[in-house]
């Protein structure tokens, strides 16, 4: 089979499928809201994938960029009436800048240390958001002002369907960027740096610059997702926007479960994890707080013990076992 051909067709079919789903569901209903969020989280996981999958740096602090994005555009909207479409640009700039700055001191850190540093950073951003009430509104959170006549220009819709397509667009864009990078010079450089930093340096790769670029792109995209979330949810607070478990870990997990470093991994992971969470929420929330999260933690442990490289690998292995 000519492998270069088939994936393109599958991808197109998938895209068409995803485009047609909303019309089959009740607008503003539960299902389409979940799917919309699913697409957004897949896009977030894809942003994370650029650093986690290509450079193999496990960041546990991506919520920092998400939150920066959400707060930036919302504050600009509230204070200056700036449309979120422009807000996204500013948010990406700020988030990207932050990502680049953070990558400097964490440059030489490997594995656990990098995870630690990024985790701490995310927590610090949360603390800042909680304290800097004058700007962020503090622990109470911030609401996106609802204007009844707003539409496309303000990225506010009554129907869920436009949001669905915006999130689909986000996933498509982040995935295209991921794809483009992995097949470009930068992709080779990242893989080289991931495999052996010294070796990469010796053959002429500016490993520092490579890492910074990947970090900036990943952070900027994550920031954009933060904006989209704000516009969709109309409300967020520091503990949700900068959430360690709800955003940072979740996004990394989605990517890892689906298949870290692969372009479809984020979507697969999101399709697995988010409905699962919803099921747990539905059955267990009644019993009180903590059950669904507990199930989440247990599933995580089980998956790690079964196959650390994710569902894509599990799937590939299963397929290989079926083949004669």
């Amino acid at each position, binding site marked *: 089979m000519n492998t270069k051909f088939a994936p393109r067709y599958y991808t197109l079919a998938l895209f068409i499928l995803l485009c047609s789903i909303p019309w089959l569901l009740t607008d503003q209903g539960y299902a389409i809201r979940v799917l919309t969020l699913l697409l957004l989280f897949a896009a977030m996981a894809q942003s994370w994938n650029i650093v986690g999958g290509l450079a193999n740096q496990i960041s546990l602090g991506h919520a920092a960029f998400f939150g920066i994005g959400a707060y930036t555009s919302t504050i600009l909207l509230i204070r200056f009436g700036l449309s979120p479409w422009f807000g996204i640009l500013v948010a990406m700039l700020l988030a990207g800048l932050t990502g680049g700055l953070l990558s400097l001191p964490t440059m030489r850190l490997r594995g656990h240390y990098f995870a630690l540093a990024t985790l701490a950073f995310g927590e610090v951003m949360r603390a800042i958001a909680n304290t800097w009430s004058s700007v962020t509104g503090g622990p109470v959170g911030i609401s996106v002002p609802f204007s009844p006549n707003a539409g496309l220009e303000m990225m506010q819709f009554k129907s869920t369907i436009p949001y669905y397509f915006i999130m689909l667009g986000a996933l498509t864009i982040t995935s295209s960027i991921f794809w483009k990078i992995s097949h470009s*010079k930068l992709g*080779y*450089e990242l893989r080289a740096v991931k495999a*052996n930093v*010294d070796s990469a340096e*010796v*053959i*002429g*790769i500016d490993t520092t610059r490579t890492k910074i670029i990947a970090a900036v792109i990943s952070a900027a995209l994550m920031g954009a997702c933060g904006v989209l979330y704000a516009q969709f949810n109309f409300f967020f607070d520091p503990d949700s926007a900068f959430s360690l478990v709800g955003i940072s870990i979740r996004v990394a997990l989605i990517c890892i479960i689906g298949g870290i470093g692969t372009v479809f991994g984020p979507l697969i992971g999101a399709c697995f994890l988010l409905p699962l969470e919803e099921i747990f929420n539905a059955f267990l929330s009644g019993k009180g707080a903590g059950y669904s999260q507990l199930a989440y933690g247990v599933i995580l442990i089980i998956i790690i013990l079964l196959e650390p490289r994710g569902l894509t690998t599990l799937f590939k292995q299963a397929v290989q076992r079926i083949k004669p």
Partner: protein
Amino acid sequence: MTNKESNRILWTQGLSRNFGGLSAVGNVNLSVKSGELLGLIGPNGAGKTTLFNLLIGLTKPSSGEVYLEGEKISGLKPHQICRLGMIKTFQNVALFPEMSVLENVLTGGLLRASVDEATVLAKDSLRKVGMLEIANKKAADLTFPEKALVEMARALCTKPRVVLLDEVMAALNETEMDHVLDLIKGLRDQEGITFIVIEHHMRAIMNLCERIVVLSFGQVIAEGTPLEIGMNPEVISAYLGTDTTAGELH
């Protein structure tokens, strides 16, 4: 500047590197002519690899300078030095295990070319070292000699002026070794590349190199033609107590 000096492509002045209280490389003054085939030998732990690391910027010198084609390169990062034309191979071979042979080699070409151009360059390099048939194999699946050759191909892709080979012939048999020796000589003759070669195979060094520098405990203890080195009593005594006997030096 004398004629000899104007021919130098690489030289060092008082190059030293200390680790704690230990002098790994001490006050080395090296001078390499353009197009030379220089051998670097010495007992294990003499500091040969450290010297290479100092030359290409993986290790910072404690004191002293390195010059490449007249430019001071000591203190520069390895990727900058690579850009200026010097590269080394690693003693234990440092390929990117999850990438294919071709991908490994073309990554070396990305320095000055696009992915497509680098791919062409890579295939050419692989052909030169005789590894083109296994271009699609995963690097982790290669034998050690294959890996060494692929690493050389990758180094060649960076279009170097000076190549530092660190025990590239370690796991080779006689035929393979002859092939590599011819390869190195050919590259020097056709493309004017300068080689500094660390080797323990005395036969290879004696056959290949026009000049040899002997390192012991980080210091240069002798320099000269293979013949001179083979008869140098200090060199012989530096090697006594290791596996190499005086007889093997001829």
